[in-house]
Each structure stands twice: as C-alpha cells, then as structure tokens.
C-alpha cells in the first residue's frame, strides 16, 4: 500500500511543482500518495509542520531557516532537501505613488536605483509635511519579499525601520489593502502583482528579478527527525518534485500547467494571468527589467544549494533579525540538504542583488559590514 503524506501549502503560483507532482502522478509513481492541504498563513504552515500535523510543507525559505535557528517564535530543526523554484515576486505600487515617483525620477524608471532615490525624496517630503509615512506591505518577517524591500530601500539609504512603514499583509488581502489606500505599495509573489495590475489597483514598479536575480523563494521543508526516520519517503517525494520540474518546463505541457495552476489558484485569478506569470513578467511599468527570468521552475532552480541559505541568513542579519555569528551561519547552511534531494549536478545560482556589495558565502561578515557602510554614508 502506498504511503499517504500530508503536505501543507499556501495557495500561490510557486506551489506549482507540488500540484504537478500530485496531478501528474509523479509522487504516486515513486510510491507515495500526497495530500495537499491549503493553509491561510505562514505561521500555520510552520506550526503544523513543527507539531507533526504536516509531513512536509511549502515554506518560505527564510522561515525554514529562522525556525531551525530559533529566531522568531518556534525553534525546531528543519531540513530543506529541495527548493520549489526561484523568483516570482515583484514590487507593485499604487497609481498615486507611481505618479509621484515618475515626477521625482531622475533617469530610467526601470532602474531600481532611480526609483529608490525618487522614493527617498518623497519620504523626506512627507516627513517635513508631517504626513503619514510611506507604507509597504510584505508577507512575513522572514521572507525574501521583506529582504527585497530592504535591498531596494537601502540603495537610497532609506531606513526601513524609521523612514517608512513595512507591514505584513496576507497576500489575498494585498490588492484590496492597496486599493483602500492603506498601503502605498507591496512586495508579494505571483499571482498577486498580476492580479493588482489586472484589477487596475497598482502598477508593477520592479520585477523581483530587477532587485535580486535568482532570488530563493519557497522550499519543501521537513522536520529533521522525520527525515531521519522516513528517508525513503523523503527521497520519493523530492524525486517527484524533480520529475514535476522537468514536466513543468516542457513547452508541450504549458497549456496543461496553466490549466492546473488556474484550478488551484482560487477564484480571483484568471488563466490569462497565470499564463502571463509563466511566460514572462507581466507588463512592466516601463523598459526592460534587469533580467526577464521571472518565476523559475527548472532543474537549476530547485537545487537546495547551501549558498542560497547563507545569502538568506545574511539578509536576516542585515535586517537586524539576528546578530551574525559563524556558528549560526553554518547552521543556516545546513538547513539546505541537497544530498537528500533529486540529483542535480550543476551548482545552483547564487542570488545577485542590483545594488550593494557582492555576496561572498565565505566572508559574510565583510559582506554585512560593506552593506552597512553603504547604507549609512
């Protein structure tokens, strides 16, 4: 009899490979049956995984690292043998903020440096006039969305804690909150940027790839002790994700993938929107983005490379969520366990931010110091 595994996920486009693994019977073919359980918050995903109500979960990569290190609410060792993709986020702003940025911009609006500098002037003017600070939404304290906002703001030395307000908003409420005027913009994953554009509520200012190329997103996370006692199931499941990745990137499967993701995305999301997300970034405000990769589901994008975990750990330290230590960095890197994932020989891409010092996984302390100097000058 095949084993039944419960996997929690948040309904987002980048849960794609899990849906494919189930719908195309890749998991069943490897001897495990998967039950996908949609959940409403990242806190729930974490708690239910840690408490054993899920066997595995679609999890924000930085959240999996934070739980393992005991930063934030719960401490429990987790393991991520396979990633579920790269990229997919974007920074979307309200029509009003976009207009204000265009008036202030000195240069090409496609350049995040130009928009960050323009934003800095808007932030300063609002403060002089005693108006409420510019407010951006993101999805969780430990999320690449949060760090992408930090990197963008940092390019113009905007202090993310003091100069602007960063608030967590559940993704399904993001567009609504922007339209109500409670947010000036947000950084969120697919499909919500495209949904905001389709609804006329916002304009995509920058694709996530314009801020960070090859940005780690979600991983398939397990409890470390469960991995030890269920090695075969873990192997079967991660191999199935590998199969799903090969299937998902084959052009001949594109229509079936769009149909599957539309079915699983919820009622607000049209097939046209999903199609756009998968093909190329949805219509950008102006000009080409730094790269046009968008959401990646290919083999190179699912390798859980410890270098990516280190990059995320460095962003946590840069955001003041933890104090950097060599031991903690090693523990963060160990969360990513590619040896337990599908065999991928090529090294995974290491994220590259559009601004700031080059990241070196061998010298995170210097990277952090350079990041700090760059921001305070």
């Amino acid at each position, binding site marked *: 009899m095949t084993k039944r595994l419960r996997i929690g996920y948040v309904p987002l486009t980048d849960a794609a490979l899990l849906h494919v693994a189930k719908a195309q019977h890749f998991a069943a073919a490897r001897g495990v049956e998967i039950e996908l359980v949609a959940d409403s918050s990242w*806190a729930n995903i974490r*708690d239910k995984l840690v408490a054993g109500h899920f066997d595995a979960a679609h999890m924000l990569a930085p959240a999996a690292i934070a739980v393992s290190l005991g930063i*934030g609410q719960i401490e429990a060792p987790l393991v991520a043998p396979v990633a579920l993709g790269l990229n997919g986020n974007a920074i979307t702003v309200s029509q009003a903020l976009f207009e204000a940025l265009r008036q202030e911009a000195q240069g090409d609006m496609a350049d995040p440096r130009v928009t960050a500098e323009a934003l800095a002037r808007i932030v300063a003017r609002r403060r002089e006039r005693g108006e409420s600070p510019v407010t951006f939404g993101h999805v*969780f304290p430990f999320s690449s969305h949060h760090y992408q906002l930090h990197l963008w703001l940092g390019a113009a030395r905007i202090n993310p804690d003091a100069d602007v307000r960063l*608030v967590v908003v559940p993704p399904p409420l993001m567009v609504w909150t922007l339209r109500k005027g409670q947010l000036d913009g947000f950084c969120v994953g697919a499909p919500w940027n495209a949904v905001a554009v389709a609804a006329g509520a916002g304009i995509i200012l920058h694709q996530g790839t314009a801020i960070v190329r090859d940005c780690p997103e979600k991983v398939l996370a397990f409890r470390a002790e469960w991995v030890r006692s269920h090695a075969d199931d873990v192997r079967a499941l991660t191999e199935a994700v590998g199969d799903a990745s090969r299937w998902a990137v084959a052009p001949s499967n594109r229509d079936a993938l769009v149909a599957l993701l539309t079915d699983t995305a919820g009622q607000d999301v049209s097939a046209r929107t999903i199609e756009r997300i998968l093909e190329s970034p949805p219509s950008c405000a102006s000009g080409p983005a730094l790269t046009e990769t968008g959401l990646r589901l290919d083999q190179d994008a699912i390798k859980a490379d410890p270098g990516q975990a280190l990059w995320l750990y460095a962003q946590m330290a840069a955001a003041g969520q933890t104090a950097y230590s060599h031991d903690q960095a090693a523990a963060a890197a160990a969360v990513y366990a590619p040896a337990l994932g599908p065999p991928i020989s090529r090294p995974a891409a290491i994220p590259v931010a559009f601004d700031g010092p080059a990241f070196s996984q061998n010298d995170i302390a210097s990277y952090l110091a350079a990041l700090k100097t760059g921001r305070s000058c």
Partner: protein
Amino acid sequence: MEARSAKQRQRGLASLTPFAARAPPKITLTGLYFRTLFLWPCMGKPPTKIFALARNVQVSIHETHGALLSRDLRIAVIDANPLRAAIIEEGLRAAGHTSVVRIDDTAELLDRIRAIDPDVILIDLESPSRDVLEQMFMVSRSVARPIAVFVDRSDGATIDAAIDAGVSAYIVDGLRKDRVKPILDITISRFNAFAKLKNELETAKSQLDDRQTIGRAKALVMRAKGITEEQAYALMRQIAMNENKKIAEVARSILTAAELLR
C-alpha cells in the same frame, strides 16, 4: 533587538520606583503597568488612568506576596466569526475572566491590540492575520513581546487539540503555564462545541432538504404510475436497496430525470 532594549530601559526605570522596589526582581511586570506609571500624565483621561494606576500597584503588591493569581488576565479574542467569538467570551467569563475583548480580524487589528495590550491573545487558526500579528510582535516597541503557545512543546496533547480545533494563542512571555492552560482548554472546547453545533445545523438542514426531495419525487411517481403514496415510497425504497443508495439520492435522480424529460 531595539525593541528589547527599550523594554529593558523601561524595566530599569521601574526599579527606581518605591512600588517596584518592594517587589523581588524576578517578578514579571506587564507593559500596561509601566505605561500607566510613566505615560498617564501625557495621556487623555487622567481619572481612569489614576484608577488603573492604583489597581496595578495593588496588583504588584499582591504579586510580591506570591498571590500571582489575583490579577485578572487581559484576553483578546480575534475571530472573524462573531457568533463563535461570543461563545468563547461567554465561556471565559463563566470561568471568571472579566477582561475579555473581542476583535474582528480585519482593519485596525494592530491599533486595537496596542490599545488593549493583552496578556493572552486567542486567534482563529484559519485567520490569515496570524502573520500580521507575528510581525507586530517582532517589531513592536509598544507591546510586550508575546510568544506562541505552540513554542512549549512539552504539552503535545494540548497542541494537537488546539490545532485540531483550529485555535492558536499567544501569551506574554513569563506568564505561568498553569494560568494559560485553562484558558486554552476553554477555548478549545468552545471551538469544538461550535463546530459540532454547526455540523448538527447542517445535518438538520440537509435532512429537511432530503425530506422535501423525497416528498416531491413520491408525488411524481404516484402521478406517473397511478399508484398510492405507500406504493410509491416502497418502490423508491426497493430501488435504493437494489442500487445501494440512500432513498434521498434516488429521489434526486427521479427529479433530475423528470426535469430532463419534461
């Protein structure tokens, strides 16, 4: 990091006051206590604040004598379902908790929490606002930093029961487990009672629907075949038994077929 140091600064100040000086240093004092002590002169309504001040001072003296159970915990219930929230509040009040505040989980959630400064927050596990709360706890300088009850995994049974019932809770750090457990137990049992009630209502509703469907199908069969009510019912029951179906399902098929053939 900064939030913590702000808190420590507050604690440092508090230790200079005559009230707190009487308390042994290990006692955890609540955020409201400090705010009331130091902020009331610049806040809106002095009389109530003075009252609160007096109340809290008395509390701190009680706590000095080890009577930690004397202060009523401030409990916030965050639930989009007003009926369930009311049922929980009623249960907590019946157990002697008088400071229970219900909060709708939509707009102004953070402002409300800040204003209430609760010791215990009970939240529907299905509410996406859990993520909002957690960020608030990370960055807030104005609220004592609450922690998820799931953090303490020594009581696996309670965690399982809470997750199954669909409840999550956050408590102010330092609050004793034996004070929180009964609150969580009440909430879990009320959540379960609510789910049961809802199920029963739905079952009753579908039974009512079934009875109406069967009645209409019976009338159709009587007219079509010119037979009595008892014969029509017997016929439908026979088909249901042969096909291993519920009689209501057979009735629905008859109505669908009749609709098609009309």
